[in-house]
């Protein structure tokens, strides 16, 4: 009956091999993580290219139909695409990192697309008199802006309630020439969160009710929504 003796010496090679395998697993994890980050950034780039094309298409449509019809220009698809891109960008900013140069390029491009969309939609709205409301939202990711996240919740909810409101958000600290120009044109000071609505700038957290007061169209939309729901009830009865 022979029982194996317990190890007499420390097996340093096992420590080395364990280190090697662990390092290999770590390297694989780094590779996988980078691979997916790159894929995500590529997806954002593709989305931006598509939106850019859509805006160009809308602009062209607008120019072509300048004097005739307002139909089919700037429908909600584009707005949804811009909004989805915004969501993904803010997720990527948190997970991939704001300092990533590829990400910064994408964010710059996104800001440009937002401004282009804003200018085009404003023109369409004025021409077609469709009572679309516009909000330019300036925020900061810095911890000094304690209310920026809350303002984000308010605006998301507001857009859910009133899809007619188009919201464009800009990182106040993201120093690109276009955002700087936007800040100087509308006189946005570093007192965030800041909202530019109907030619007026407001600072600090604004609730849904406070924003509704600044946008009188919301009363009309509320009435329309009430009338539609009443009609539906009557039709059901």
């Amino acid at each position: 009956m022979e029982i194996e003796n317990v190890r007499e010496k420390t097996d340093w090679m096992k420590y080395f091999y364990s280190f090697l395998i662990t390092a290999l697993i770590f390297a694989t994890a780094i590779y996988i993580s980078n691979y997916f980050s790159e894929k995500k950034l590529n997806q954002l780039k593709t989305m931006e290219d598509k939106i850019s094309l859509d805006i160009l298409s809308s602009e062209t449509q607008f120019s072509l139909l300048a004097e005739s019809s307002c139909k089919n220009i700037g429908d909600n698809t584009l707005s949804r695409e811009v909004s989805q891109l915004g969501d993904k960008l803010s997720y990527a900013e948190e997970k991939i990192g704001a300092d990533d140069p590829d990400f910064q390029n994408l964010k710059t491009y996104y800001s440009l697309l937002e401004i282009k969309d804003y200018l085009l939609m404003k023109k369409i709205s004025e021409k077609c008199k469709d009572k679309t409301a516009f909000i330019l939202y300036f925020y900061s990711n810095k911890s000094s802006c304690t209310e920026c996240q809350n303002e984000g919740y308010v605006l998301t909810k507001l857009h859910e309630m009133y899809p007619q409101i188009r919201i464009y958000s800009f990182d106040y600290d993201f120093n690109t020439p276009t955002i700087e120009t936007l800040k100087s044109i509308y006189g946005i000071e570093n007192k965030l969160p800041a909202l530019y609505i109907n030619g007026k700038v407001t600072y600090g957290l604004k609730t849904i009710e406070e924003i509704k007061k600044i946008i009188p169209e919301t009363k009309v939309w509320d009435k329309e929504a009430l009338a539609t729901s009443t009609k539906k009830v009557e039709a059901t009865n």
Partner: protein
Amino acid sequence: MISSIIIYILLFGSLYFEVFLMITYFEKRKHIKTEYLKMEGTNWPSVDIIVPCYNESTTIIATINSLLNLEYPKDKLRIMVIDDGSVDDSLKTLEIFKENAQVQIHHKENGGKYTALNFGIKNSTADLFGCLDADSFVDKDALKIMLPYFENPKIMAVVPSIKVYEPKNILQKIQKVEYSWGIFVRKILTYLNALHVTPGPFTIFRRKIFENIGNYRHAHHTEDLEMALRMQKNNYKIANSHRSFVYTVTPKNIKTLYKQRRRWTYGFLKNTIDYKHMFFKKEYGNLSFFILPFAVVSIFSTIYLATNFVLSNINTVFEQIAKFKLIGFSFHKFHIDWFYFNTGLVSVIGVFSVVASITLILISIKLAEGKLKIKPELFYFLFIYPVIAPLWLFGAVFNTIFSKTITWR
């Protein structure tokens, strides 16, 4: 940034430990599978088993009966029950063994478990000396599977595999998986000569070890841990008989589990401080360079990671409250887009680490149960244990830092 670096280092460390265990397991797998010897012949050594008893009237009879049922020559096996000043009717319950020649019943004033064990050592005359906690029960072939290990003269103690006795509720089922993990780790530690606990339930010693290194000490209520460290310090070897099964009654509720585990962790930390000179010394091998430092670091890293997790989630809770106050109920958008899967480095390493942990746990279950059967307790263990374990680790570290003594119960 610093927090991320700390998390990467901790993840690397825990993955390294898992890889190290796995390499050792695959290196020794064949040996683990075939290692199954039973005592044969007529030259059976005499064995004294001490059963320290303090208020154990509900389980003591079954404990002694399990010892009496051991497949071992009756004239070679003596059971010494040491009643450590019980205030319940343990002593009266024990009267049924009065006429049994194999059972000796002693009564002494309460002094703690280690005093009961030392009382037993003082009265022991056998070749081998063992202890069985009064809430534990042995398999009938447990002892004869352990004895062949003593044919190696360097081995001074053999520890068994401990299982949970009749797990009923979720908490006990979680402990069942945990004890299976313990069986696996104990086996691996044997190959590294790094066992640092000689558990109360049925560790068998050569009696002369106590003459050489002294009796049990108070050792912060973890005398079994201190004894193993003292043996390691004196270069005595401890083996593990993974096929000798002992069943122990485990805590039924979170409060008693918390107190038990806090005592164990506190005892480990205090004894580690007492034996700090064993760290990073060539003569103590793997125990000194790897196992003890890793065990200490893992306690603090678990607390760090748990605190980090709680703080970040508290923040989320406050954010959600603020959000509710502002806009009322608003369900978070559920993104099924792959884009929103967290593919950050910590998450990917986390997935690798979880896969390695599950693999090791499945190997442990196979080793403990003889076959691999995936039961719900595996999932209870995976999801509930990481939530509750930091509680007693935190309690133990708090008491160690602020020198608060811990009671047995």
